[in-house]
């Protein structure tokens, strides 16, 4: 389905949290500005208090009521600020954290829905990083960055207005207003310039950090290869290169923070304001408290001085992250769900490939070569098909197309007169079951894994499926049996055990068309024999396609299809192919079992069941 992206631009995305709660946002921003006002007001009241104090000292009045009142005012402001701040923080937390939670969920849902073409192209590590970090950074850009910036700029503006008011109140030309209205924009300009200058460096640095992490992680994962080929030096050199670049960027970023001009501007503004107000006080135009007000207001602005560029940076950075996210979210899926899906399909009917071509899309979005090229064949309904061919021949691709993980680039796949792309993927995947080559198991109980395709399955059904897949025996030997939680990526089981669990999973799903992709390669001979017998039952009365290299599967197949380089080479029964297809003869001659035929002729081979191990894996 072509993804209809809700967000047109990165801005849309970055601000979507605020849009979701407009009323709360207005309240939060309003209160944030109120907090700024309170902060600056405390400086103002301090000035008033000093005036009261000056009068008291002059008149030797002792502690005046006015002075004590001012002290209480300041304390009151502190209390009110405390409460306001918390309310603002709470509102912003609700707005932004809920957004973060839902944005992450939405991101996952969208990419999960994307067809496999997407997942082939994009590194899942990168997707994970976007889902976790990028979304978090977008949230950071709103909270705390935006929240603090609102307060910082609010304070700057309110302080500027109050400073201008000092002159106006006294009926003078607003000289202070002029001073701060030159200083503030300059201050903001340089703060912004710093943020702009440092942003690309910081981004580059964090990308370099990712690169460095990737380089070392890769080496440590493949340490055996490094060791075996003695390439330690090469790897050290490689690391030296990336880490030196990291050092360069880290230095650059750090140095940009030196000689931070806004501080200088603030100092000059304060000095000029100080001289002006001091002079006015001496001229008798202002009371002494005004000098205190001016200095204290500018000192309050100083408090935000270093915060401002840092948060500006986070906001700009959040924009870049939002861009990345929106780009992923707006990926257009070449696979569309049908508008009028066909619901009634005869899954037991013939399967026809009609001029089917398919190419995987490379990471740059191009299809450069074809995995299947102009493939034509017809599988009669209910038959057992064996699919063989060399690596890259297209066997797995054929199975994936039947599961509608992809649509053919050209041509059609028809099942019972219905073009497969007219069927909703959900219906296709209900009817078609695949046991994949590289078995993926989830980090949940064995029970949960077997019942993955059918959550409502009863314990009995699960155990029956396991039995049929020849998995029951080894599961029963596990301490916690069916409740055993499989380790990360199922690594604690042997290859053969995992394959059997995957088969059980598919048996439980009870698909109408069964696809097995080399599913028994790691299973030992005896188990495989038992498995075959069990699968005989499962395959009864349904179409099955098995990618295999086992002789017996070939012998018992109704049809053998040989593909090579994405093309059909030959198809037919074993006997026919052996007689007619050189390609098949060649493959057949290399089958290990075929070799053992000769041994079988020479000496009797029996099965010594006592020595049979149940664990698969062949190693």
């Amino acid at each position, binding site marked *: 389905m072509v993804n209809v992206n809700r967000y047109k631009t990165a801005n849309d995305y970055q601000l979507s949290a605020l849009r979701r709660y407009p009323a709360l946002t207005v309240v939060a921003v309003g209160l944030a500005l109120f907090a700024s006002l309170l902060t600056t007001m405390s400086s103002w009241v301090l000035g008033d208090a000093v005036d009261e104090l000056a009068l008291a000292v002059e008149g030797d009045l002792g502690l005046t009521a006015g002075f004590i009142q001012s002290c209480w005012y300041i304390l009151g402001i502190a209390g009110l600020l405390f409460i306001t701040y*918390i309310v603002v923080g709470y509102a912003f937390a609700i707005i932004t954290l809920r957004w973060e939670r839902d944005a992450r969920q939405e991101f996952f849902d969208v990419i*999960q829905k994307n067809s496999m073409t997407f997942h082939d192209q994009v590194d899942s590590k990168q997707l994970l990083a976007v889902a976790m970090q990028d979304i978090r950074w977008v949230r950071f850009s709103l909270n705390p960055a935006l929240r603090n910036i609102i307060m910082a700029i609010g304070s700057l503006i309110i302080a500027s207005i109050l400073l201008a008011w000092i002159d106006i109140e006294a009926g003078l030309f607003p000289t202070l207003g002029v001073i701060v209205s030159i200083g503030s924009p300059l201050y903001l300009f340089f703060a912004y310039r710093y943020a702009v200058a440092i942003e690309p460096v910081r981004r580059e640095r964090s990308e370099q950090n990712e690169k460095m992490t990737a380089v070392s992680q890769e080496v440590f994962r493949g340490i055996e290869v490094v060791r075996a080929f003695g390439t330690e030096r090469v790897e050290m050199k490689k690391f030296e290169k990336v*880490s030196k670049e990291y050092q360069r960027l880290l*230095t650059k970023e*750090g140095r940009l923070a030196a000689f931070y001009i806004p501080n200088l501007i603030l100092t000059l503004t304060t000095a000029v304001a100080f001289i002006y107000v001091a002079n006015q006080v001496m001229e008798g135009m202002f009371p002494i408290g005004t000098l205190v007000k001016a200095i204290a207001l500018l000192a309050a602005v100083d408090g935000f001085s270093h915060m401002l560029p840092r948060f500006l940076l986070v906001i700009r950075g959040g924009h870049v992250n939002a861009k990345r996210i929106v780009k992923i979210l707006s990926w257009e899926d070449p696979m569309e769900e049908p508008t009028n899906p066909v619901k009634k399909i005869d899954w037991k009917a013939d399967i026809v490939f009609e001029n089917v071509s398919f190419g995987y899309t490379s990471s740059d979005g191009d299809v450069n*070569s074809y995995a299947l090229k102009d493939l034509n064949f017809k599988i009669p309904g209910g038959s057992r098909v064996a699919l063989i061919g060399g*690596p890259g021949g297209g066997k797995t691709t054929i199975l994936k197309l039947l599961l509608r993980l992809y649509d053919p680039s050209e041509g059609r796949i028809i099942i019972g007169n219905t073009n497969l792309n007219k069927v909703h993927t959900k219906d296709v995947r209900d009817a078609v079951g695949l046991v994949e080559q590289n078995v993926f198991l989830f980090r949940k109980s064995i029970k949960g894994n077997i019942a993955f395709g059918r959550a409502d399955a009863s314990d009995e059904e699960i155990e029956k499926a396991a039995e049929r897949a020849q998995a029951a025996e080894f599961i029963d030997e596990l301490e916690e049996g069916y409740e055993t939680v499989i380790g990360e990526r199922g690594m604690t089981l042997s290859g053969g055990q995992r394959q059997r669990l995957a088969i059980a999973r598919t048996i439980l799903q009870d698909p109408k068309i069964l696809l097995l992709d080399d599913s028994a390669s790691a299973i030992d001979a005896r188990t495989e024999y038992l498995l075959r017998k069990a699968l005989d039952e499962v395959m009864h009365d349904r179409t099955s396609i098995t990618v295999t290299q086992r002789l017996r599967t070939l012998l018992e197949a109704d049809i053998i299809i040989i593909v090579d380089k994405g093309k059909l080479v030959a198809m037919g029964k074993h006997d026919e192919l052996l007689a007619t297809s050189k390609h098949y003869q060649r493959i057949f001659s290399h089958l290990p079992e075929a070799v053992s035929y000769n041994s079988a002729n020479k000496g009797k081979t029996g099965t010594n069941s006592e020595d049979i191990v149940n664990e698969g*894996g062949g190693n």
Partner: protein
Amino acid sequence: MAAPRGPAMMMEKEKRSRPMRVLLRSMFGYLGQFKRIIFGAAILSILATIFLAVDPLVLSWGIDLVMEPGTDLNNILILGALFTGLKVTSWVLASINTWIMAGAQAGFVRSLQQDVYNKLVKADLSYHHGEQSGDVTSRVTSDTDSLGAGIQIIIELASQILLVIATFTLMWMTSPFVALAALMVVPVVILIMVIFGTVGQRIMLATHRAAGKVSGQIAENLGGVQVAKAFNREKETSSTLGELNEEAYRHGFKFMMLMTLMQPLIRATGIAAVSAILFVGGTLITGSTSTLTLGEVFLGTILIQRFFMPLLILSMNATQFQASLASMDRLMDVLEAEPKVRDSDNASPLKDDSDGIRFENVTFSYLEGSEVLRDVSFTIEPEKMVAIVGHTGAGKSTVASLLSRFYDPQEGNVLIGDQNIKDIKLASLHDSLALIAQEPYLFDGTIYDNIRYACPSASNEEIMELSKMIGAHEFIEVLPAGYDTQLIEEGKNLSAGQIQMISIARTMLADPKILILDEATSRLDAYSESLVQEAQERLFSKRTTIVIAHRLSTIAKASRILVFDHGKLVEQGTNEELLSLGGRYKALYDTYYSHQSASEISEDTMKVAGKEMNKVEKKPGMTSGKTPGKMGGMGSGAMHRQGQGHGK
């Protein structure tokens, strides 16, 4: 105002294995070439602080001066210039410090990174197998960063402490009462420290864990996305994630509120302290015996901020510093560890005429108490191919690992020719001996890069030629960008067989003198395997080779077979000898190698198959020479099976 340090709060508290003294000493020790620069930077930082500490004094003089009748404007101008001068000087000094530190810190972090990395690349494999690769990587990246931050903190520490002391002294000189009133902020600082150290730490850890679960779930869901699709389980995986996500939200909310609480607490305390100082100052100044001036009262209100903030920063830094020490501790584990497997003092290169392999009473265990190999002795003659067979856990792969000297045996010796491999230079050993591991690992990079890994000088043509020979060319060619296709995530878009093929090409290109194949062709189809074997025969026929395999076709060609069982070498001999022995090998043979169900196939099919087999085998040349690229190789593969291989 400095916001609380984020990263500091992110670090988990851990038990350190070394005392702080040792850690600090080695931290300074590691400064190495940067010692002088950093010392200089610290001086600058202290100077900047001194200038910073006195500037409020200038402003308070100003206030007092203005109050005095008849003050000349020039005096005010001088004070203005003095204020500007102090501020600018402090700014310049601090900026130079920042400038220098940026370079020194980055340099220090880098040299540390390289040291740690080099150490880890050479560390024993037992270390790597015991750790997650992500954890190892974080030694190189985050721990070194954290240590860099620690150095920064130590430098800041000096100036912050100086600022606290200088400010407090100034206040004391102004009025001891004001100074005492200023101490009211101390309980708040302690409160903040305690909140962070206890509840905060707990909430933070829970938040991290919850976020980690979300991350892990997303990673797993992405890994299994095809399975979820195949079974129509997208909704369920989504709702599983939803639950974890909700939990992470709840924890995150608590954490956020905690952080949100800090800011108003700090701000409100700052303002309340102003009120307190003002009141104390006011009381003193209006008192009868006051020597306090108005300017000094104001000075008190400014100084209280200068006292409060560095105290806060110090308390916050303490957490970060703890984290840096913990990082140092972990790094020392790495840096001080001496790899057990390394060149001995009298190591020499592998001699050209050293060939053949000998195990002499080798006993080995990965973990103490569970021996994987027990008293194993065998000899492999030079230029012979020997197969090793046995069940899972019999110790087959361990033989390969010991021979590659990934580990040293606890008892006994491994020899190549007459040289004990402990006395062979590792570089030379690995140049001459190559292992194709059971689970091949491909690096992110192009196919070319991967095949060329051990032989950087190989040309594209050579790589292609080799790939053709082992039958890999056909599938590589049809990849989206052919040989230039970028592999991601260890080659997730390739089948297991294709990954094996590439790793085989990589090793064959390296052209080793001794070859070990550990189930190297287990995921190949029979036909591809035969091509590989044929190439192997052509390129490596006269080299010492060990194959660990479960396929009869591989074993049958070995000059001898070693049968392992539970870490012991139990039988050895040729295929026929071992079969007629009727022991362990025979049992294995029947389980894995023979076509167990021949009796299941009807007699007729058997006959046909057998007959056809003979036909095919009798006409080896029928396919060769038609299309050299594709058919030629295949034909010769069939020939080879009869021992008539050509092209040697």
